[in-house]
Every structure is written in structure tokens, then in C-alpha cells.
């Protein structure tokens, strides 16, 4: 031992690797999976569960699956795995609903424009962000025109009635409209609820409490059936528009409460400091209070977004067919009846991708805005 001792000047000792038994896969397994008797049992149980579940699922969904075929009987004759032929035959129906085939390029174009419009909002280090944001503001109108069509300043696209909307496209239209409009509305409602003007406060409180006290399905039902009792005969208030309004209002009620939570977490000193610097109400809100309040509220806001996105499946009660509705209706096709596992799994994957993306983005945003307050 003695002979190996080297002499270093103070502070110049090189970093040595950690002891062998504290690194590497073996150490990781010991620390994370087998650190106590309870953990050992849990690990064994989990491994057993995975072995039980994964191979049959993989076998059913991939190895034994049938990807092409004319009908259910053909699938059945060729194997007992998942019959994805059903989904692939109906894929276009799932995507576009009843949107007329020659016009489907408009849906595709809107989707591409959507991605272009969303990027400058989501990321702040992209080239041309300023003009991009102007485009984002214009996008809802462009998309509405593209999807519905009609005569506009000499442009003439064939009109597509909104009841032809369906499938993923319908989910995206309803979900994104709701998300885009409920946030600003929710902010206004949250601020209004704290207003010193009684009328505004009472209005906002009653609106929020009403919305939160009534299930979305009821609101949708009112939108689809009750309105036609009240509107003068002959007025044709578009059904999808009613749904969009109802969904947006519904989400904004919840959004307002989430944001109010954020506002209440901001110390009063922040507003007072803003006041003392001579900032007007809206300036202090925009520059001081809201940026902090919204940052704290991100998890809650995204939670509301995801909830809203999934709630779009409720439109089936008023006769609009979202992917789930299309799936259910497709199951009644005599050629394919009884393939519910495939349909529900397919729709679930779609929703999982969308919602998981939203939740990942919110984590990214939280990390980016992290200013060291987190515990």
C-alpha cells in the first residue's frame, strides 16, 4: 500500500471513478429494484405481470395480425390475431369523416397550415417568429374558409356543410378551437372574477359557477336541440358552430378557475410594486402578474386542455361522428361486426399520441420557464 501513495498538491487530486459496486447495471438493479424485501416482491410481481401480458398482446396485435382482407370472415380464416384490415379499409373514414373525397386536399392543407401556425407559438427560437405570429392570428379564419368553403372575394371553393365533418378531423377542429379560445377567455374571466366592479365580478362568478355546475353533455344537448325552439324558424345556426361555442365556453369556465389559482399565488407585493412604478392595470397584468401566474398554472392549464380534447368524443350525443363515433358506426357494418378491440385500440392510440404530446410539451415549457422557485 505504502508504495503506491502519490503526493498531490492540495486541490490537485484527480477525480477518481466511483467504487465498482456503486455503478453499472448490477448496482442500478440493486438500488432501484431490490433495495428492500417489499421492493423485491414488487419487482418479481411486476416482471411476472409483464411476462403474462406483453407476449400475448404483441402476438395478437402484430405477429398474428391480418393487415389486408375483404371482410371479417377472411381475417378469421387466416388467423386469430388482430384484424387491422378493417382499420386500413376504413382509415380514410376515420380521418376525414364524411368530407367529400375530391375536396379532402383542403383538410390536408389546413393541417399543414396548422403546423406552420402552431410552431411560432410553441417555440420562441424559430426564424421569422414575428411574421409567423401574425399568420397564427389569421390562421383560424383561413382554416375556417378552407374547410367550409363558399364564395369569398372572388375565391370560390365548393361549400362543404359542417355535418360532413367527422373523424380525427372533427376532433382536431373542436379540440384546437376550444383550446385556442378558452385560454384567453379563461384569463379574462379569472381577472373579471377579481374585479372591483361589482357587475363584472357578479357576471364572471355566475358564469363560471353555472358552467361548472352543468355537465358538458347537457350543454351540447341544449345546443343541438333546445336552441331551435328559441331561434326564429328558418334561421339555420350551424350545428358545429354551436358545438364549438359550447365547448369553448365550457373549457373557459374551468380555465378561469385554474388561472385564478395561479393569480392567488402571486404575492400582493408584485401588484403594489407595479402600481408604484406607475403601471396601469393592464400593463401590470400583462408585464408583471400574468406571466408569473400563467407559469405556475401550466400543469392545470394543460390538464384542462387534455380534458377538453378528450371530451370532444361527447359530440356523438348530438349526432356528430368523431373517431369513436365513426368506430362504433363502423362496427355495425355487416362485413366487419365484432371487431371492437381493434377499433377501440386504434382510437385509444390516436388520443394517447395527442394527449401525451400535450403533456410532454407542458413539461418542456415548465423546464424552460423554470426560475428556481420549484421545490
Amino acid at each position, binding site marked *: 500500500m505504502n508504495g503506491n501513495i502519490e503526493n498531490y498538491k492540495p486541490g490537485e487530486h484527480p477525480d477518481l471513478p466511483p467504487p465498482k459496486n456503486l455503478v453499472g447495471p448490477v448496482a442500478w438493479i440493486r438500488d432501484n429494484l431490490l433495495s428492500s424485501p417489499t421492493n423485491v416482491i414488487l419487482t418479481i410481481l411486476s416482471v411476472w405481470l409483464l411476462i403474462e401480458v406483453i407476449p400475448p398482446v404483441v402476438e395478437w396485435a402484430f405477429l398474428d395480425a391480418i393487415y389486408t382482407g375483404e371482410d371479417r370472415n377472411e381475417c378469421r380464416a387466416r388467423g386469430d390475431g388482430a384484424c387491422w384490415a378493417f382499420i386500413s379499409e376504413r382509415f380514410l373514414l376515420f380521418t376525414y369523416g364524411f368530407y367529400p373525397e375530391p375536396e379532402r386536399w383542403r383538410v390536408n392543407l389546413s393541417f399543414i397550415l396548422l403546423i406552420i401556425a402552431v410552431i411560432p407559438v410553441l417555440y420562441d427560437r424559430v426564424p421569422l417568429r414575428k411574421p409567423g405570429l401574425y399568420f397564427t392570428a389569421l390562421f383560424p379564419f383561413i382554416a375556417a374558409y378552407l374547410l367550409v368553403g363558399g364564395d369569398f372575394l372572388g375565391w370560390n371553393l365548393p361549400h362543404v356543410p359542417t355535418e360532413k365533418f367527422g373523424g380525427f378531423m372533427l376532433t382536431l377542429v373542436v379540440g384546437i378551437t376550444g383550446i385556442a379560445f378558452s385560454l384567453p377567455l379563461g384569463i379574462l374571466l379569472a381577472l373579471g372574477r377579481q374585479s372591483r366592479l361589482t357587475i363584472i365580478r357578479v357576471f364572471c362568478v355566475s358564469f363560471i359557477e353555472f358552467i361548472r355546475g352543468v355537465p358538458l353533455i347537457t350543454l351540447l344537448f341544449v345546443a343541438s336541440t333546445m336552441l331551435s325552439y328559441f331561434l326564429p324558424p328558418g334561421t339555420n345556426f350551424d350545428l358545429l358552430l354551436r358545438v364549438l361555442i359550447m365547448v369553448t365556453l365550457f373549457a373557459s369556465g374551468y380555465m378561469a378557475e385554474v388561472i385564478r389559482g395561479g393569480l392567488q399565488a402571486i404575492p400582493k407585493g408584485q401588484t403594489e410594486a407595479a402600481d408604484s412604478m406607475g403601471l396601469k392595470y393592464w400593463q401590470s397584468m400583462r408585464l408583471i402578474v400574468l406571466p408569473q401566474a400563467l407559469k405556475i398554472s401550466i400543469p392545470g392549464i394543460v390538464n384542462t386542455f387534455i380534458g377538453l380534447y378528450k371530451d370532444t368524443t361527447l359530440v356523438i350525443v348530438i349526432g356528430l361522428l368523431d373517431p369513436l363515433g365513426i368506430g362504433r358506426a363502423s362496427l*355495425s357494418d355487416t362485413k366487419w361486426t365484432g371487431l371492437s378491440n381493434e377499433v377501440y385500440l386504434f382510437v385509444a392510440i390516436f388520443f394517447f399520441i395527442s394527449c401525451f404530446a400535450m403533456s410532454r410539451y407542458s413539461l418542456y415549457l415548465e423546464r424552460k420557464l423554470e426560475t428556481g422557485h420549484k421545490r
Partner: protein
Amino acid sequence: MKLTKTTALAAAISLTALTAQAGTLDDVQARGELNCVVTTGLAGFAAPDENGRWEGFDVDFCRAVAAAVLGDPEKVKFVPTTGKTRFTILNSGEGDILFRNTTETMSRDADLKLTFLPVNYYDGQGFLIRKDLGIDSAKDLDGASVCIQTGTTTELNLADFFRVNNISYEPVTIETNEEGIANYTANRCDVYTTDASGLASTRAALEDPSAHKILPEIISKEPLAGAVRQGDDQWADIGKWVVNAIISAEELGVTQANVAELAAAATNNPSINRMLGTEGNMGEMVGLDAQWAVRAITAIGNYGETFDRHIGPDTPIALERGLNAQWNNGGILYAAPIR
């Protein structure tokens, strides 16, 4: 002052409600589209195909009405509804006519303010059960769990049947037929009950149809009929006579293939002539032209043709005509004469 204003407003609202009720034919023709209430999906009766086109037995009747009223069987907007929402949608004016495998009952007719069209399918409620449970009669179902659609007459029949026979059951309520199949195949209920037509198609779609059977008891009468809102007799007449024409066409031997030929000139059968407008003008009486029935039959064929196309023995649903054969052929299909 305030009172009179409110009264005037109320009067205006009820007036507009009234005007909304009358003149459905004018509304439909002005709109150029028939809003037809159908189910969200029932094999053989109404379901979208892979191109998004609605197909089925009920759907055909929608197309026939559209052809008679608008001259084009494709000018139909299908309004898919669940069992619970169908009547509200019809009564609110979101739908003009309903063909949604709906049982005609007194309370629906009188209380829900519907006017039913002639029956287009005679059905009855049955039970589907796994053979290995060893049950041969519905009366042995004591304590069974039963999958049942809410908001339907089958739900009420079921309660009646079990009460009358003094046996108990455990309801597993579901929303759609499709859900019922999923629950039944997953063994969440011992028995699935719905109209026998639905059971036949359900059984045909199961993994191993021979492991399941339909119990012999048919516990109810389910005359399935189209319906319209009460209060517009002309519109109800149109629906009624389009259905009657489709049924009569089979009885008279008028088919999709020969209808154009038969309608070109008067034949020696006055019944055919009256229906196809080569003699007199029956269509005028309901506000249509003389060719109304020709268009309806050209669109979907006669009753037998649409039956065979969607639910007949050659389809996966494989229903026999049974009660739904013509009256002179062992069934009870008996359309009032067009004269």
C-alpha cells in the same frame, strides 16, 4: 306594460313554434335536403360503409322519401342518434323524419307527440345466451345478468317479463348495440337481449356462432316503424304513403328494374297505374307530383328488394321474411291500397 310585452313575446314564440311545425314539406323542399334521423349504427339497418355512405334497410326508406319529395335519393342528411336522443332530435326540428328501428307504442305516439308511419319491420324481443350455460327457456333465467340498452322498449319489456314470471335478474345497462355485443362477448353478462333481428346479426358476428343460441321465447311485440312530428298531417301522409308504396310495389310485382317500363304507359292493372301515376294523380293529394312513387321505387326497389339487399337470407344477418312476408305469402305485411 311589462306584462303585455312579456305576453306578446310569449305569443310570438308560441306562434313561431307553431309555424315551425306546419309545412315540413315546404321546409324540406326549400332546404333541398331531407334530415333523416337514423341510429348511430345497427348492422343491416343503418351504418356508414367504408366510403362514408350510409347503407341499410332504414336508410333506404329515408332515401325513398327523399326521392319522392325532392326527386333525388341522395339529398338526405343523416342525423345519427342514440336511443335516448332520437325523439328529442325529431321533435326539436333537427330531423324531419325518423327511421331508426323504433317500436311504435301508445305512449310514444300520444305522450311524445309523434305520428307513426306504417310498420316496416315486425320484430320481437328475444334472448341470446351461451349454449354451455345449459339453459333452454327464458323462464330459467333466474338471477342472470342481462345486457340491455337503456331508453328502449326492450328495457321495459324485460322488467315486465321477469316480474310476471317472478324471477330476478341483474341489468347491465349499455348505450348501443355494439357495446352490448362487446359486453356479452367479454362475459360481463350471461344474456344479451334486444330485438330478434338484432340478435340474429349479433350471433352471426360472434367468434363461434354455434356456441350461442337464441332462446325460443319472444317476449314482446316490436312493430318497428318510421315516425314524424305530430301536427303536420300532410307530411305524415307523405311518409305513410311512401312506405305503403314500397310495400305495395312488392305485392304488385313492381321492381326497381321494371318500374320505368311500367310507368311509361298505363298497364292493364289499375292498381299499378294509380300508384305509378299513369292513371289519375294520387301524388297531388299529398302535395307531390304524379311520379312520386316511381321515384321512390326507382331509388330503392320494392320492399322485398331492400329487405334482401340489407337483412335478407343472403346477407350476413340472414333474417328470414317470417312475419314480414306479404299477407298473401304467410306474413302480416298488409299495405293499405293506393286509390
